[in-house]
């Protein structure tokens, strides 16, 4: 019960801190900031629980006691955090598929013509903002009029390329 309780308490604390910071000012590099907030709270929380140990009780439950319990809390918290951060990528930017589905829903019950998508979903909406995101995230940079990958970008791209090769997936995607 301790693992469940403390894992949830730390996650909720990190989430609330994230909400407060977002309401004050939206960070430029949002994912990086989310990682800082969530793992910052985890580290501070674990260090505090470890140093306080038994005296602290919530709902009649003391802080985790054994190393195995701490590892369990860390794994639980980390998995929830990663799941939230991957979901956040869909919150941060508009997903074209979701926009299309919402457009079709808004056109109910008459349905939507294909041409309507092309009117609203242009390169200015779909592609150019994502290229700018990559520059902001320092995954690409401008060299004259050309976009190039930074070392961080090369690493990230090669992870996905390697995995697609491992899956034997040669579809274009996108």
């Amino acid at each position, binding site marked *: 019960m301790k693992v469940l309780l403390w894992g949830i308490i730390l996650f909720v604390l990190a989430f609330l801190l994230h909400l407060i910071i977002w309401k004050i000012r939206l960070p430029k590099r949002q994912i990086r900031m989310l990682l800082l907030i969530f793992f910052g709270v985890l580290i501070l929380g674990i260090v505090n629980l470890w140093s306080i140990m038994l005296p602290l009780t919530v709902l009649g439950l003391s802080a985790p006691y054994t190393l195995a319990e701490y590892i369990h809390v860390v794994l639980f918290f980390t998995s929830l955090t990663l799941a939230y951060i991957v979901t956040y990528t869909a919150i941060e930017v508009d997903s074209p598929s979701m926009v299309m*589905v919402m457009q079709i829903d808004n056109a109910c019950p008459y349905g939507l013509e294909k041409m309507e998508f092309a009117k609203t979903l242009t390169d200015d909406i779909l592609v150019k903002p994502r290229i700018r995101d990559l520059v902001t995230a320092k995954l690409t940079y401008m060299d004259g009029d050309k976009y190039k990958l930074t070392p961080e970008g090369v690493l990230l791209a090669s992870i996905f390329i390697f995995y697609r090769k491992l899956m034997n*997936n040669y579809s274009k995607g996108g």
Partner: protein
Amino acid sequence: MFLSYFYAFIPLLGLMLNVFTQLISFRYIKFSLLKSLVLGFIIGLLFVSGANFYGYFAAGQSAGEFWPLSIVNFLTYSALGYCYAHFVNMGEGARRIRIMRELYKSETGLTLDELLKIYDGRQMIENRISRLVSGGQIIFKNGRYFIGKPHMLLISRIILLMKLIILGKRSEFE
């Protein structure tokens, strides 16, 4: 003692089994991406459930410990499985990853016009429409698109709600 550590790592072992099953079923059995992800998740989930019950029945764990730890392991495994599915989907459909893959292939970098030629919005709409139609999320009838299975619409509405709560707006372009 051993059981505590074993319990903590059950979700990670489940994830490894999930990834292995997904890779084999996609690469060698030629399942579709979605089917292979679902199969991998189910196999991992069966392992996680079985390993949790092992602790209860074979290692004499108390019911008071069993249920909370099972919930933690179920949530941890589900979150990790969700992250893995998202990682695979990002390699397939995410615009930023696709742009980075194109830049990786090009040794001298690409201009904005070159990027737009390779990865134009119109083609992206076509790809996404065909994925949504083949998945049954939208239906094409009498030259118009309609909502099919409601899952994608439900997810889109949840994401929209999260956008409103966290960012205070419906779209990144507001």
